[in-house]
């Protein structure tokens, strides 16, 4: 897993979405199907990724089918850069 992608995303999820910067996001932890990231914050995550990495995730891809864990998300971003 590319940590230059994973670390900023994990920090964003813990600090901005969960408002708990100390929270560790494990690479294989379920993010969407667990409700950790709710639907109102999926669009935030999409915008963050677009701004930070220049990779656009279409709104129809913001679901657990496309990515549900940090490592899946990192792989998705890496494949599009």
């Amino acid at each position: 897993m590319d940590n230059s992608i994973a670390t900023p995303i994990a920090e964003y999820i813990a600090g901005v979405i969960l408002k708990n910067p100390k929270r560790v996001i494990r690479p294989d932890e379920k993010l969407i199907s667990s409700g950790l990231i709710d639907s109102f914050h999926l669009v935030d995550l999409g915008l963050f990724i677009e701004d930070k990495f220049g990779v656009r995730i279409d709104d129809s891809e913001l679901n657990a089918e496309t990515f549900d864990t940090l490592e899946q998300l990192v792989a998705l971003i890496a494949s599009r850069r």
Partner: protein
Amino acid sequence: MTTFATVLAQHYVGAADRPAIHLQFARRDDVTLTYRDLVCGAAGFARVLAERGIAPGEVVVIILQHGEPLVYAFWGATLHGAVPSILPPLTEKLLPERYRKDLAALIRVTRPRAIVTYAEFAPEVTRAANDVGGDAPQVIVIGEVVPTEPDFAALGGMRRSPQDIVLLQHSSGSTGLQKGVALSHRAVFNQLDAYAPAIGLSDRDVIVSWLPLYHDMGLIASFVLPVLRRVPLVLMSPFDWVRAPARLMHAVTKYGGTLTWLPNFAYNFCATRIRERDLTDVDLSSLRAVINCSEPIYHSSHQIFLQKFERYGLRPNALATCYAMAENTFAVTQSEIGRPIARNAGGGIGNAGQVSSGRPLSNVRIRILSEDRRDLPEGAIGEIALQSDCMLSEYYHRPDATAQAFFEGFYLTGDLGYVLDGEVYVTGRKKDLIIVGGKNVYPQDLEQLASEVPGVHPGRVAAFGVFNAEAGTEDVVIVAEAESEDVTEREQVAEAIRQHITRNSDVAVRRVVMVDARWLIKTSSGKVARSANKEKYLAQLCGGEASSSLPERG
């Protein structure tokens, strides 16, 4: 005699080729249903109900995603004379076991004769139905509905009376699902007769909505009203909208939308989540009214919405407000369309600057009642009670809840507010109810869930909502007494509570606070006192993020 079916029959004759609903999808082109399409699809579904032996007057629960089958199932049930009740489908975060449990509880009270759903979800629904035992409802899998030419003379819906129940509306959670608001044909038509002039509805209007059909604002204002009144409707899925809120603006632009209803949080959400690059070619100048409804209304939310969208043609006077509830079919009050919304000018009564919800509809009488149910004078805050010709017939199969809800023929809303110069201002709630993102959530459901987590003192939990100005809605806060004093263990319990509630309810919990034993304030009868604990939380624990329990609405 006017009923849903007789009106559909008139549309079929008089407006067959007119567009009724433009359905929008994330991965499909728009589908336009004319009134002919709508009535024939509904007739096809009514035939399915007849073949399955469903009798007029029996309840049919509909659990379907956005799309043609949902439209056909709802209107088809009314053509058949059955009583539809639309429930939300299982979402990816919700545990199937919880969904089943809540559904089983609803079945026990409501006793539907059928549940309509899609093939993938049928096993789940069948298990819930079987859990109930006894006279379990049939599960009807909706595949392709075969549109049928309607034979109105043979349709059971044509023989319903105006006082018969036409639909049920439920709110979410274990508590809400067991209290179905039963509305008669007459109540719905009386609501439309009063509400249509209040919003100046005409055949030049186009209603645009992303709202779910299992809430009154979506079902009545943005589905039943346009279809019965021949006003074209542009309808998208709430799941698609929340992932791409600019879809609403593009739908208004494409179809010349004139009216839309939004809960307060959506103003903040649209203003902060939509990027300029996603608004290319957007033109909102066709909008006559954007109506804020279903949760507390904040002037600041209107301001940021206007700042964002005025350059795209949104007119300041398009902003409007409404106070509504399923128990009155929908609207109770409405601000005057095209005019600035009244605000409390101060002078010692209520909160200066607070936004009015408008004046009562022509068929609604409002009383403001004290704790001991005496009428309060103008400007005094008390419980809002209302009487109209569009109130619920009953909470379905719940004579106990129905009896409790009324006083001298007035429905007790559980909301607090006051009347000033004829305008109704809603200030808060008497009932412990959390409204988050437009959804009503019962705190007792969340407290019960938190109590199920190991490491929590059962019954020593308080759930309440705290206003989040950035989001324009409430955040759910859980305060729980921990059995352990160990910090790490407490963090684990807090995380377990968060997960357990998130996966077993409609809300995603952000803030769980673990406190020492005996921290929570109890009432003399030994119950956890929610409002007192909320005050204590705000004073001691929330770290200055919210300085007041009753933020100024203004």
